[in-house]
Every structure is written in structure tokens, then in C-alpha cells.
């Protein structure tokens, strides 16, 4: 099948937000439910219009909470969709699942949602231990966190491609500058400079605390539909001009940096081909940024610069407010809030809809209204990836 046949056939018609940051006293499920309800309303739909409900993977319950399933969320929303599902691990199947349901005509409106009470529940993203016994053999070596697995590849990139904390601080600071323009961002009122970045303690060297995304309470949802149907709904349709999906499922410590078959490289190639575009056509990037280095790695895999060029290419002047390629304009996960891929994707949609207040591109001094925004979603440790190229439809 020619990928271009799928270009501009599907759209995002609504976005759902909830209170976020530190919101104590609520279950994780409540954030899924509220975000989904708000996305349905934002799209101008009734809950009976929803015929597919797709949940991101939910981590183990924290803070005495119970697990979240698609049954739970559907029940509380009072919907009986054609299909409900939930990722188990972070395989990032939601996008192609939704597209398939819409393309076949089996479904007309698909809600994709994530929520968590990670901050109030003090989620640590450390592999759980039961009875003192590690759940996998990595813990035998003391390798307990997701952070360490990303840091391992970042260290190799330092060795092979001369990157390092001087590059990652530019990402952390530029995104913080964006967050300083976004009242709902967790770091809205916290300014970050070089000294602030370097004075943050090491967690797993070479990563400092500010290379990692903090946890947040809250939820986020989007509604996907066909482009045709989106044109009849209240919001301007945000067309999916290109999308791609790929996996690199090996254990993270077996992955190599700058692999031309990395999930990000393969997924973005599909998206660019579908859209008939190259990185030169992209005005803004909203990228999954669990760690600073993830942003660097994704931009490199997408072809914005070549391996070894990050030190010159990644500057706050380029990717921060007023720069020629704005990246993560909400503050991203690093400085706004962590809702998996829905943090970057929702921001891309909101920018194209023109709903971003002080940080709105085209309104903010020194910026122009974007025509084309590229978004990413990443799962596991660089093990699964979705790329989306979004444009505002007429």
C-alpha cells in the first residue's frame, strides 16, 4: 500500500485535560475518567458517539490505590464502546489500533487516554521487588531503574558522538523557558539556568536529577476520528498528515546508539514518506522527553541533524521560545507534566488549534504560527515508537 494514501485521512478532534501537578486525594482512575470525559466534550461529541476506548499501560498501583483497567474507565464514563483495550507493556499500539478501527469503518470516534496519581502516590519507576527477590535478573546487578537504562545509552553517545551534559542542559533549560510561559506546567514559576542544572545531583551518572522527568498527578486524552467527520465538529480538525510506528524490542542494554533501524528512525521515515515531507518541512517538534537525552536522540533519529552534530545544533536559542525550531512548547514532560505520549501530542494539537495562551506560537514575540508539527511517542526504553506529523485542516 502506498503510505501517502493514508495522509490526511484521520484527525484529532478534541483534547481532554484535568487538574495536574500535585492533586492529592484522588485515584488514578479518576484522572483517566475526567480526561476522557473532557476530551469527548471538547470534540463536541456525546459519550454515545465513542465506539473505542484505548488506555495507555497503567503501572502498578501506588499509594494504596487499585489497578486501572479499561473496564473501570468505561464503566465510570457510562459507555459501552464497540471495543475497549489497554496496553500491558509500553508497546505503543494505540495509534495504529485507532487508525485501523477508523480506516475499516468499524469505529468512528476513538478516545485514547492516560492518567496517574504518580506524584501523590510517590511512584518511583523502580522495578518492584517482592519478598526481597528481584523480578528480573537485571536487579541482580543493581540495575533497578528506567532512568539508568536510558543513561546507559546516553553515556555511549557521549563516547561516540561527543554529546553530554552541556547539550542536555540546553534541552532542560529551553523546555523550562517554555514551561515558564505555561501556567499549568509543574515548573511554571521555577526558572532554570546553567548553574541550576549543574548543581542538581547525579542520580545515575551521567544523568542528573534535571535530566529526568518528574512525576505528576493528572490525566490527558485525545479523540481521534476521520478527517471527513472532524470537519463537521466544532474544533478545527487537526489532520494526521503522516504517521509511523516501529519497535526495537531487544532488552534496552542490548540496543545501540545511532542505529539506523532504531524505532524512532523507522517510525519517522514512514511518517515523512506518508506526508511527502522531510525534516525541513517541520515547523515545531513536540517530542516524548522522559529524559533530556531522549529529545536529542529523537531529533537525531528523525534526521534534524547528523550524529555528532548535537553539540552545535541543540541550543536554547534554536529550540526555546523565539527559536527557529521550537521543541516541547508546553515545557514537555521535563517541565510541564508526564502523561506519556499525550503530553507532546496534546500540545501539538493545542498549538495548531491556537489555544496555547502566552506560549501560543504566532502570538508570542519572535514566533510564527506553525503549519506543521511533528510529535513523538516512545515506549519502554527506545523499544517502541510512534511518529505523527500534524497539520491544521480547513
Amino acid at each position, binding site marked *: 500500500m502506498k503510505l501517502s494514501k493514508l495522509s490526511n485521512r484521520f484527525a484529532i478532534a478534541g483534547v481532554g485535560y484535568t487538574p495536574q501537578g500535585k492533586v492529592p486525594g484522588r485515584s488514578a482512575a479518576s484522572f483517566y475518567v475526567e480526561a476522557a470525559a473532557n476530551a469527548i466534550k471538547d470534540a463536541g461529541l456525546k459519550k454515545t458517539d465513542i465506539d473505542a476506548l484505548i488506555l495507555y499501560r497503567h503501572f502498578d498501583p501506588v499509594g494504596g490505590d487499585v489497578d486501572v483497567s479499561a473496564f473501570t474507565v468505561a464503566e465510570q464514563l457510562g459507555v459501552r464502546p464497540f471495543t475497549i483495550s489497554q496496553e500491558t507493556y509500553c508497546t505503543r499500539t494505540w495509534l495504529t489500533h485507532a487508525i485501523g478501527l477508523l480506516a475499516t469503518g468499524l469505529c468512528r470516534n476513538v478516545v485514547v487516554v492516560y492518567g496517574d496519581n504518580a506524584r501523590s502516590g510517590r511512584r518511583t519507576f523502580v522495578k518492584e521487588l517482592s519478598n526481597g527477590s528481584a523480578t528480573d535478573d537485571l*536487579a541482580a546487578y543493581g540495575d533497578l531503574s528506567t532512568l539508568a537504562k536510558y543513561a*546507559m545509552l546516553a553515556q555511549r553517545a557521549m563516547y561516540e558522538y561527543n554529546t553530554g551534559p552541556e547539550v542536555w542542559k540546553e534541552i532542560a533549560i529551553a523546555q523550562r523557558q517554555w514551561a515558564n510561559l505555561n501556567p499549568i506546567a509543574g515548573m511554571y514559576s521555577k526558572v532554570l539556568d546553567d548553574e541550576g542544572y549543574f548543581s542538581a545531583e547525579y542520580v545515575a551518572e551521567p544523568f542528573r536529577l534535571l535530566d529526568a522527568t518528574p512525576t505528576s498527578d493528572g490525566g490527558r486524552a485525545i479523540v481521534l476520528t476521520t478527517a471527513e467527520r472532524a470537519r463537521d465538529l466544532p474544533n478545527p480538525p487537526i489532520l494526521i498528515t503522516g504517521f509511523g510506528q516501529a519497535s526495537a524490542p531487544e532488552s534496552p542494554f542490548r540496543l545501540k546508539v545511532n542505529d539506523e533501524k532504531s524505532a524512532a528512525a523507522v517510525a519517522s521515515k514512514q511518517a515523512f514518506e506518508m506526508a511527502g515531507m522531510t525534516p525541513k518541512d517541520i515547523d515545531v517538534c513536540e517530542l516524548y522527553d522522559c529524559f533530556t537525552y531522549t529529545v536529542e536522540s529523537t531529533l537525531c533519529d528523525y534526521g534534524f541533524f547528523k550524529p555528532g552534530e548535537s553539540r552545535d545544533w541543540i541550543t536554547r536559542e534554536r529550540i526555546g521560545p523565539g527559536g527557529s525550531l521550537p521543541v516541547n512548547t508546553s515545557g514537555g514532560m521535563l517541565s510541564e507534566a508526564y502523561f506519556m505520549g499525550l503530553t507532546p501530542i496534546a500540545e501539538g494539537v493545542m498549538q495548531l488549534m491556537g489555544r496555547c495562551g502566552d506560549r501560543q506560537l504566532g502570538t508570542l514575540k519572535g514566533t510564527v504560527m506553525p503549519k506543521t508539527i511533528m510529535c513523538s511517542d516512545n515506549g519502554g526504553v527506545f523499544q517502541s515508537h510512534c511518529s505523527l506529523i500534524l497539520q491544521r485542516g480547513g
Partner: protein
Amino acid sequence: MKSFFTPRVVADAKPFWQGCSEHKLKFQNCSACGHIRWPASVVCPNCLSEEYEWKEHGGEGTLYSFIVFRRAFHPSLEAEIPYVVAVIDLDGGPTILAGISGSKSEEIHCGARVRVVWDDDQGKDEQVDIPAFEMV
């Protein structure tokens, strides 16, 4: 070295851990294509053959990358901080995770040649032995 936590040994990987207790680094070698694999599996990820033999590896390789844990992700690790976890590309064999012994973290670097080392106090306690590597 001694493991930080007792690994949950899946049935397929038992010969690997048995090898560790004898201070031998053993992996499945595909009888059809020669591919040496880890993690343990019933089929070869290179050719899907089900024929294999567990064979000892020479234990030499190249350090691909490493990290220095500066924060304990579990209370029981606080006394170990800082410690190093490394990724080793074994010669002709699989890539494995392992600790590094005998070097300060500042001396460790990507691309270093390494070889496997085992603790001397084999069998002295109930903990599982795991491979560590030292820079050559």
C-alpha cells in the same frame, strides 16, 4: 561478585545460573547457525532452529557502556553507592549486563577491553554468583 538481589531464575535460563555457580559463563550456541544467544530461549533468534548446546564462553569482551549509580533505588543498596553497572559486548557472543570490579569509576571507559572475574568465596553463602568484569 555477589548479586544485589537474588535473580528470579526462569526455567530456560537455569543452565546459565548453574554455570555462574561453577564460575563459568555459559550460553546457548545454535547448532544450526552458530549464533550465541542470551537471554535463554527455546529457539535461535537468528534462524529459529530449536537445536542448541550450552557452551562456556571465553569471558572476554569490550565495554559498550556503563553508568555509575549515585542514588540508591532500594534501601538495601545504600551501602553500595556509588556502584557501576556496565554493558559488555562479549567477543563473538551476546551482549550482557555486569558489574565492574577492580577499577574506580573514573577509570572506566567505553571501548575498554574486559574479561570476566568471579569472587573467590564461592559457596560461602546462599547468594547467587553473578559475573563481573575487570579492565584488561
